């Protein structure tokens, strides 16, 4: 027998309340049918005696206290899963929107997932080459890592994310690659840009897309990354795919969460975001990783736009505390025309130290990257001194640092969107640039490694005009 509750007792924002319900579980899904036959979906978010409060995914527009009847499905929000999902496009809550019909599920899973037991995790060690010098050289992406891109409106984060997806490859490839792409509150053309980019790379058949575009309901936006990660976990841990998950834009997600929280009347915390923002973000980001005895992996590249380019804003701040590093884009570099405009100093990959070096990339990699960081940070000192006393007054050494800084930005960080540099090229490039400075300035590298790689004046090769 199908039990329906007729009418509602309260409406507020995207929330509806029902009185007199029995046998309803926390987090259970419900179907709400309007008089005109329209069907919407909701989820139980609060129970108090015989009163239940539900969030309605599609919003409450057009619902009155009398025109809706509610049926509780008896199970939590789940997602139909199958390898058939590869190559398909879904909306924010996992319903197919590419007109190819429903998928035939192998399994249905609760989209909230459960925490990976820390003792079951396999510590990520194999790096992913992106062909981008600033990332490969200085903030290496590791399989099973969560490495967000911190950007700002108008910068080229989407291009960068797309380039990572196009070029990503693993040394000694084992198992197949798959991409799960979740768009949250992005514009239609951004989603289209990604789709075309996947198509050009011939990867469309390996991509699962979940699209919650800017005009789609915000309640669905809260579920979008959960659906995407459930699909990713399924492909990785049941079918052995190495899944790269791109989540864009996490800022829209957090704003949706804030909107939803305030409609529930919760006590706001920093900048009006709910107090549980950290736990909520963690429940997404921590779904990256590898598991002992399972072949696949889930690697996350979330993209977020920092409001007003402020890295201390709660969204980038809490993200940075959860993720294993970050790639930070910088507006000044962007304005100088440098692509990708990656600001090296605040960028970091926490897992890098265990995934590079002998046996992984090249023995000198870690020291070299440390030296580049240290040297580039001195460039900033020299620049700020130059801005006070003028470039002419600088010491010879400081002038060399200035020259290094400019060359590092234009030759190392800067590269073409189609340029796929090998790790050898990237590291050699780093050494060539360091030769602009006297040996004595290289204080992060031991004498033997310097001996091996440092060639005086090697930098001149970078500036000689190409022959022919």
């Amino acid at each position, binding site marked *: 027998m199908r039990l329906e509750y007729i009418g509602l007792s309260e409406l507020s924002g995207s929330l509806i309340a029902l009185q007199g319900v029995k046998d309803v579980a926390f987090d259970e899904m419900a179907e709400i049918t309007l008089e005109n036959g329209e069907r919407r979906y909701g989820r139980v978010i609060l129970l108090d005696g015989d009163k239940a409060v539900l969030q309605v995914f599609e919003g409450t527009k057009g619902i009155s206290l009398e025109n809706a009847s509610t049926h509780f499905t008896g199970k939590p929000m789940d997602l139909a899963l199958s390898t058939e999902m590869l190559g398909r496009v879904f909306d924010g809550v996992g319903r197919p929107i590419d007109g190819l019909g429903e998928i035939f599920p192998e399994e249905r899973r609760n989209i909230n997932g459960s*925490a990976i037991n820390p003792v079951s995790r396999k510590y990520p060690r194999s790096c992913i080459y992106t062909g981008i010098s600033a990332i490969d050289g200085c903030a290496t992406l590791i399989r099973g890592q969560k490495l967000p891109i911190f950007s700002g409106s108008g910068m080229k984060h989407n291009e960068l994310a797309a380039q990572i997806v196009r070029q990503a490859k693993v040394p000694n490839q084992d198992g197949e690659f798959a991409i799960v792409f979740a768009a949250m509150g992005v514009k239609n053309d951004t989603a289209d840009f990604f789709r075309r980019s996947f198509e050009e790379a011939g990867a469309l058949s390996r991509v699962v897309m979940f699209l919650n575009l800017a005009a789609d309901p915000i309640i669905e936006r809260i579920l979008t990354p959960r659906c995407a990660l459930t699909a990713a976990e399924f492909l990785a841990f049941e079918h052995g795919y190495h899944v790269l998950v791109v989540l864009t834009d996490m800022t829209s997600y957090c704003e949706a969460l804030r909107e939803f929280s305030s409609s529930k009347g919760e006590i706001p915390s920093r900048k009006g975001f709910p107090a549980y923002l950290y736990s909520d973000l963690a429940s997404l980001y921590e779904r990256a990783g590898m598991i002992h005895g399972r072949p696949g992996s889930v690697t996350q590249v979330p993209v977020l736009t920092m409001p007003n380019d402020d890295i201390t804003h709660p969204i980038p701040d809490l993200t940075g505390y959860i993720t294993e590093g970050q790639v930070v884009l910088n507006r000044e570099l962007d304005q100088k025309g440098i692509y990708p405009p990656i600001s090296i100093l605040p960028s970091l990959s926490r897992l890098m130290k265990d995934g590079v070096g002998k046996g992984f990339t090249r023995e000198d990699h870690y020291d070299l990257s440390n030296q580049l960081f240290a040297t580039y940070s001195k460039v900033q000192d020299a620049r700020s001194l130059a801005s006070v006393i003028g470039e002419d007054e600088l010491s010879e050494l400081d002038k060399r640092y200035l020259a290094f800084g400019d060359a590092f930005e234009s030759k190392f960080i800067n590269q073409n969107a189609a340029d796929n540099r090998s790790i050898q090229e990237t590291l050699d490039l780093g050494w060539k640039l360091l030769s602009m400075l006297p040996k004595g300035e290289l204080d992060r590298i031991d004498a033997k490694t310097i001996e091996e790689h440092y060639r005086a004046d090697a930098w001149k090769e970078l500036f000689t005009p190409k022959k022919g």
Partner: protein
Amino acid sequence: MKQAQYTIHGINGPVVKVVGGRGLAMMDMVSVGDEGLIGEVVGVDLDAATVQVYEDTAGLKPGQPAAGLGAPMAITLGPGMLTNIFDGIARPLKVIEERSGPFIARGLNIPSLDQEKAWDVTIHVKEGDTLSPGALYASCPETPLILHRCLVPAGVSGRVTKAVPNGAYNVTEVLVELTDDRGRVHPLKLSQSWPIRTPRPMAERLPIDRPLVTGQRIIDTLFPIGKGGAAAIPGPFGAGKTMTQHQLAKWSDADIIVYLGCGERGNEMTQALEEFSELLDPKSQQPLLNRTILIANTSNMPVAAREASVYTGMTIAEYYRDMGYHVALMADSTSRWAEALREISGRLEEMPAEEGFPAYLASRLAEFYERAGYVRTLEGKEGSVTVIGAVSPQGGDFSEPVTQNTKRYVRTFWGLDRALAYARHFPSINWLTSYSEYADDLKPWYDAHVGSEFVACRFQLSQLLQKEAELMEIVKLIGADILPEDQKLIIETARLIRVGFLQQNAYHAVDTYVPLDKQLRMMQLILKLHSGAKEIVSRSIPLSQLKETGIFEELAKMKYEVPNDHQEKFDDYAKAIDEALRQVDEANR
């Protein structure tokens, strides 16, 4: 245990309302729902009690049963905790993995200790002995490093009326029975239970007079922490809090390390588990894991269990302290705990104070850090709990409530610095904002154990760094070239101190751990060069001449070149300094 029956009335995330009686006391443990999820009473009013549940509450329904367990949240303590890894309420994660696979399921009611494993037990009492709290009645080797000593719990005393012979016993078997004055019999086993929010008693607090030697130069030299002290490591993300905590857990000279991953990353705990199993303790050549207990309540595990995890860690630390061990508790990160408090407080609809944190934040922090201390135990031995708490300030801003309130209750403050981390200067402890109030208390110890020069060298080092900071203000405006030679020397020496001494490479086999006597030699050499150079500069010889000899660069790299067990190599450096000074001297005759 008598179980009173109640009924679930309402559910809001991890907060559940139960009705059906008035028997529930604050902080009592409650089993909630058909699956028996574990929770704790956080509020009681006339017709309902509020319970915070340590597991995901999806699927709970009003009308399902809830049972009061009649006692506050307690954990079982006993042999088998070392080398193990637990969640925030002391459930062993390895057993959870066996039961539910790689993803953590709910409602698993698993005892913390292996119930079957037999330990090689020595009984230290015989029938007729009179025992009071803290008396040793049994012991067993828990790991090759640690002897587990079972002591009569607080509040229990009497005459031994039964004692088993030495032999193999598991944690559930009764070893000794005590009969008190009133004729009540108290069975004593290898394990005992203790409520996590109650500090374990001790005989008295003793003054802190010896350092926790960490082998990290900037800590041991400039900002030492005493055994039984409390320290905070605040820093923005990426500044190296976890790295520093790992280094301390690996190399500090505590007997036992309790490493608490509170609301942090899963991969970090996996890494800690791997590294601690592989690395050997420099003193005993045993795997570090043999002296380590890990508690992992990662950021995506239930928030209420995260709140409890710091108390679980502290209770375990105190338990080993009571056996006469020096325990160090690394809590990474206390901010996640504070945020758990805030999150739960929000669900309880309490009035928020600063930044949305509950008004009782300061008193909770105080209660926690005050459980650190150097004590005489009930048994009469000396033991200590040292607490090192990482703080993750919002936006890296140290003026936020958790950092500020923590500062009031710790006496060592290692402030990590974003700019240093960006320049890959690690540990990125800023020598200008950090402090240690223990430095003076520990002077007699350093004088007696390392040499009286140590404290004098430290003083000169911090003087030089201080002066450099003042000079850098000027350099930023006019450049370094215009400074007089003696000031250039200060900048050069300070650079040597920063690069050659304060900076320490955790991944370098030699540099990762440095004993105190080696730290002293390094300081002495740096200061020797400084005073020699000062003399040269005072004769108006330009400093650049001395720099050209390369002696500054050479000293900067000595940290990598001199092994901990071949310190005679330092003599070569002393000679090299003399030689460089002589060269410059001769060239100017």
